[in-house]
C-alpha cells in the first residue's frame, strides 16, 4: 500500500535508522538533517523502505501431533490447521463445522517436540510401545475416551513436569524414528501451504520444559525453509529442561545449517515466579554471558493466549485499572496447580512488566539486559483451530469446543483450587509490521521486535519513539513516514541527548479492527529504575475516544467510556469510543539518568465475551462469577531508553 505524501525523507535517514535498530543500538536522527534531505528529493515515494503492512497470525499452535492434544481427542493434522488458517471451512474433531471471519496471514504450528506423534502410535497399539505397562494402560484409557482419557492426559502433563514419563517413550532409540518421520511429514506440509505474498507457514516447534509444573516452555521459530529445518531433529526438554542448553543447541543449528532461530517463552503467568527468576537453572546468579545469550535468542515474550494474560497483576500494579484482564483462574498457581500457591512475592519474576523492570536493573548491574523483549500473542490451541474470535471460539482443547456445558467444566484442580473452562480467554494474535508476507520478512520483524500482541482483535497500532515528534506531525498525509524518519518503531532504542532538558516524545496511532469494537483509549506504560535502584511504573492515558465530552477529573482520572453491551443478545454498538486515535506524547516525568521502557496499550470499548455468545446461542445461564464482557486490547512492544554513559 502506498499513500500520497506532501514531503519525503531521504533513503539515507531510513537506512541509517534501520541499520542502527538492527544492531540494537540507540538511534537518534536529527530533524535538521531530515528537513534538508526533504528539500532535495522530488518524488514523494522515495525512502519508503519501511514496513507498510501489518500481518496477523498465531505463533503458538498445536495439532494432533502433540501428545496432549491427541490424548484430549484432537484428530486434525497440520494440514487441517493450515486449511482453516487460510480461510477454508473445516470440521472440528468434535464434528462441528467452522470457518474464520477472515483468513490469517501466517501460522506457526508449534507442536510439542517431546513425543511428537508418539501418542498416536500408543493409541494405535504400536507393539514397541505396548511392551510398557503404563503405555498399555494409556492405550486402554485413550480408547475408552471421555473422563478416562482426560484423567490420563493430566497424568501425562504431571509426568512431563516431574520427568517421570515411561522410558519407552523418552528413549530416542525407540521413539526417535517415529518422531523424526512425523517432523519430516510436518515440514512437507508446511512447504506445501507456505505461499509467499499471501500466507506464511512459518516452521516452529515447542520445547516443553516444565520443571515441577512451573511453566518454562519456549516456542522455537525458524527463519528458513524445510531444507534447513530437516537437517537436525529439534532439541527437546527430554534432553534438558535448562533453557541455556536449548540456546546451545540453537547455536549448533545455526552453525550447521546457516539458518536462524529465535525462542519465545510463554505463560510466565503459570511459572510460579520462575520465568524471570534472578538465578539460572543451576541456581547461580545471572551472569553477563547468560544475559547476552538470553537477549540474543529470546527477543519476544508471549503476553496473552488462551491460558490467560501475563502482562501484570493488581498486586504489582495497584494503579492499573485494566490489570485484572485474563487473570481469573490463572493467578492461583502454576500450570498443573501443583507445588505451591502463587504469592505476591513471585509476581515480579513471572509477569512481563515485572520481567521488563528486572531487565532494567540488570542493565545497571551487568551492563546488559537479559529481559529486553517485545510482546507477541498466541493461542496455544490444541485442536488445530486458531478459532479465538469471541463469537467463534473453539476452546483450547477438543473437550472445550462449543457445547452448553463447556463453561463449567473443570480443566485443572489442585491445591484446593479449580480452574474452569470459562476462565480461558479467546485470545490472541501476533501482529507483525513487515514489508511483505514471507517467512524471512516476518521473522526479521520479530527479531527486531517490530511486533505487537492483541487479545484476538485485529486493530492496527503504530508506536514510534524519538526526540522531535510534535503535534503537527499528526496532520502529515503519511504518518508512518514521519514516524520512521524522526525516531524508532516499537522494539527500538533511544539514547541520551546532549541537551538534558529534552524529554522523549512518542507518536502513537491506532485504528480499530474493521469489524471490531471502537477504541476507548491509548495508554503509555512506563517503567524505570530510579537512582536508588527502585523499580517503578506509571500509566498515562494519552488519547481517548469521545474526547469532546470526556475530560479527566481533578485527580487526572479519565471517566469510563461507557458500555453498550446487551448481554442477552450478545451484541454491542459502536456508538461510543472512536474508530481511530492518534497522538504525540512527551514524557512529563522524564529523568535522563534513569533506565526506562515505554509501551503502548490500546483498549477497546466493552464487547461481549465468548461466554456471552455461549449463553445466547445455547440458551443457558451461567453462574454469576462468570465474566461475560471483555475489553479487547493490543500491547505494543516496548521502546527502551538507556542513559548516556550507562554500562
Amino acid at each position, binding site marked *: *500500500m*502506498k*499513500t*500520497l505524501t506532501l514531503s519525503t525523507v531521504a533513503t539515507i535517514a531510513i537506512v541509517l535508522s534501520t541499520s542502527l535498530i538492527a544492531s540494537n543500538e540507540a538511534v537518534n536522527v536529527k530533524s535538521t538533517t531530515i528537513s534538508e534531505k526533504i528539500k532535495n528529493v522530488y518524488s514523494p515515494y522515495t525512502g519508503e523502505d519501511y514496513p507498510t*503492512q501489518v500481518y496477523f497470525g498465531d505463533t503458538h499452535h498445536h495439532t494432533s501431533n502433540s501428545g496432549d492434544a491427541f490424548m484430549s481427542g484432537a484428530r486434525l493434522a497440520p494440514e487441517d490447521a493450515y486449511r482453516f488458517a487460510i480461510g477454508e471451512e473445516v470440521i472440528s474433531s468434535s464434528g462441528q463445522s467452522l470457518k474464520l471471519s*477472515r*483468513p490469517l*496471514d501466517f501460522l506457526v504450528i508449534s507442536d510439542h517436540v517431546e513425543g511428537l506423534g508418539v501418542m498416536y502410535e500408543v493409541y*494405535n*497399539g*504400536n*507393539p514397541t510401545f505396548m511392551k510398557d505397562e503404563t503405555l498399555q494402560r494409556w492405550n486402554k484409557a485413550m480408547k475408552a475416551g471421555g473422563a478416562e482419557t482426560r484423567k490420563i492426559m493430566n497424568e501425562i502433563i504431571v509426568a512431563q513436569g516431574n520427568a517421570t514419563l515411561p522410558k519407552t517413550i523418552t528413549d530416542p*532409540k525407540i521413539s*526417535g*524414528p517415529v518422531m*523424526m518421520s512425523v517432523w519430516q511429514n510436518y515440514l512437507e506440509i508446511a512447504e506445501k501451504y507456505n505461499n509467499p505474498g*499471501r500466507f506464511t507457514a512459518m516452521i516452529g516447534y515447542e520445547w516443553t520444559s516444565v520443571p515441577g509444573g512451573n511453566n518454562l516452555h519456549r516456542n522455537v521459530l525458524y527463519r528458513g525453509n524445510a531444507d534447513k529445518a530437516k*537437517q*537436525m*531433529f529439534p532439541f527437546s526438554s527430554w534432553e534438558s529442561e535448562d533453557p541455556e542448553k536449548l540456546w546451545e543447541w540453537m547455536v549448533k543449528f545455526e552453525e550447521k545449517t546457516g539458518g536462524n532461530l529465535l525462542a519465545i517463552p510463554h505463560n510466565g503467568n503459570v511459572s510460579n515466579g520462575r520465568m524471570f527468576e534472578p538465578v539460572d537453572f543451576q541456581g547461580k546468579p545471572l551472569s553477563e554471558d547468560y544475559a547476552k545469550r538470553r537477549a540474543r535468542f529470546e527477543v519476544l515474550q508471549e503476553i496473552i493466549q488462551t491460558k490467560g494474560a501475563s502482562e501484570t497483576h493488581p498486586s504489582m500494579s495497584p494503579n492499573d485499572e485494566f490489570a485484572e484482564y485474563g487473570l481469573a483462574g490463572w493467578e492461583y498457581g502454576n500450570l498443573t496447580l501443583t507445588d505451591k500457591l502463587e504469592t505476591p512475592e513471585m509476581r515480579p519474576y513471572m509477569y512481563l512488566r515485572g520481567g521488563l523492570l528486572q531487565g532494567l536493573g540488570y542493565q545497571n548491574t551487568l551492563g546488559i539486559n537479559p529481559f529486553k523483549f517485545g510482546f507477541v500473542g498466541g493461542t496455544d490451541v490444541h485442536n488445530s483451530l486458531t478459532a479465538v474470535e469471541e463469537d467463534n471460539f473453539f476452546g483450547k482443547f477438543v473437550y472445550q469446543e462449543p457445547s452448553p456445558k463447556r463453561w463449567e467444566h473443570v480443566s485443572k484442580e489442585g491445591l484446593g483450587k479449580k480452574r474452569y473452562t470459562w476462565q480461558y480467554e479467546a485470545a490472541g494474535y501476533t501482529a507483525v509490521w513487515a514489508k511483505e508476507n514471507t517467512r524471512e520478512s516476518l521473522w526479521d520483524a520479530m527479531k527486531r521486535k517490530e511486533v505487537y500482541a492483541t487479545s484476538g482483535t*485485529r486493530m*492496527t497500532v*503504530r508506536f514510534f519513539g524519538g526526540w522531535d515528534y510534535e503535534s503537527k506531525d*499528526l*496532520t502529515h*498525509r*503519511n*504518518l508512518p513516514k514521519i514516524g520512521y524518519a524522526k525516531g524508532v518503531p516499537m522494539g527500538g532504542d533511544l539514547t541520551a541527548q546532549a541537551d538534558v532538558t529534552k524529554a522523549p516524545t512518542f507518536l502513537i*496511532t491506532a*485504528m*480499530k*479492527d*474493521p*469489524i*471490531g469494537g*471502537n477504541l476507548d483509549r491509548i495508554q503509555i506504560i512506563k517503567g524505570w529504575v530510579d537512582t536508588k535502584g527502585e523499580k517503578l511504573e506509571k500509566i498515562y492515558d494519552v488519547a481517548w*475516544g*469521545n474526547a469532546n465530552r470526556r475530560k479527566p477529573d481533578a485527580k487526572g482520572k479519565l471517566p469510563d467510556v461507557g458500555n453498550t453491551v446487551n448481554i442477552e443478545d450478545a451484541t454491542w454498538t*459502536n456508538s461510543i*469510543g*472512536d*474508530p*481511530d486515535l*492518534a497522538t504525540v506524547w512527551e514524557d512529563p516525568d522524564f529523568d535522563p539518568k534513569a533506565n526506562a521502557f515505554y509501551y503502548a496499550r490500546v483498549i477497546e470499548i466493552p464487547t461481549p465475551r465468548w461466554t456471552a455468545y455461549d449463553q445466547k446461542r445455547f440458551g443457558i445461564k451461567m453462574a454469576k462469577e462468570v465474566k461475560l464482557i471483555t475489553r479487547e486490547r493490543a500491547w505494543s512492544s516496548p521502546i527502551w531508553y538507556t542513559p548516556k554513559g550507562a554500562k
Partner: protein
Amino acid sequence: MNKWLKEPLFHFLLIGMGIFLLYGLIANVPVDEKNSINVSVSHANRMVSLWEKRWQRPPTQEEFNGLVKQYINEEVLYREALAMGLDKNDPVVRRRMAQKVKFISENIITIDTPSDDVLQTYLDTHASKYQLAGEITFRHIYFNPAKHDVSMEDEAKQLLTKLLDVNSGIDVNNVGDSFLHGTIFTNLKEFELNRLLGKEFTQELFKQAVGKWAGPLTSGYGLHLIYIESKIATQTASLVMAKQSVLKDWMSDERKKANEAFVLNLREQYKVNIAKPSSTLLPQKSTK
C-alpha cells in the same frame, strides 16, 4: 551274486535309496535356510545409512552391534509370529498390508500427459480454484463518525454532488477527515483490501465505475466517497497462466480415480456378503 544284481527288488531298493538321498540333498537345504538369519553387506550398509539419516552421524561400533542385535531379535520374533499365525486378525498388520498393496498399485499406475483440451475442460469445471486476485487503485475521502453528528451521511452526499460538478473547483486533498491507512491506495489486491477495510466495503467498491466519484460507501470506520483510477476484477486464470497447477491437480485427481478403479476391480473378484448387525448396536434414527 550276479543273480541278485539282476533282481528287480534290488533295483527297487537302489532307486528308493537314491530318491532318499536326493530328497535329503534337496530338502535339507531349505530346512537349514529356514533356521538361519543372514545379515548381508548391503543390508548392514543400509542400516548404517538409515541411522545416519536419523541422527546425522554414523553409529559407533556399539550402536551398530545394537542395531544388528535388534534386527536379529525382531526377525526371530517375526518368523515365530508368522509360524504361529499372528499376522491373521491383527488390525494394524491388516491395515499395513493393505496399504502396501495400495502403494504398489500407485507406483504401477501410469497416467499419460493430457492434451490442452482436457486441461482446459478441467480448468473450466474447477474455475474457483484458479482465481487471479482482483486489483484496484483508488482514492477516498473519509468521514469519521466520531467527528460528525447524525447529518454525516447528508454531508457526504452534498460533497459528492460538488465533486461531480466540474465547476466547483474542490481541492480533494483538503476535504474529509484524516485516515490513518492513507487516502490513496495503489495496486491493492482484493484480499489486502479485505483486511484493511473489510469484505463488505471491498465488494461494494469493486462494483463502482472507474473514473468517477461515487459513494458514500460504508466501512467499519465510517463513510467513504471513492474515486477508482483503475481496477481489474477477480477472474479465472487462463490455461497458459495456470497450466502447471492445473496439470498437477488433474494428475492427482486422475491418480485418485485410477486407485479407486483398481480397488473396485479387485472387489469384483470377490463375492461380498454383508450381514446386518444386531439392531441394538446401531444408533437409533436421527431425530434431526
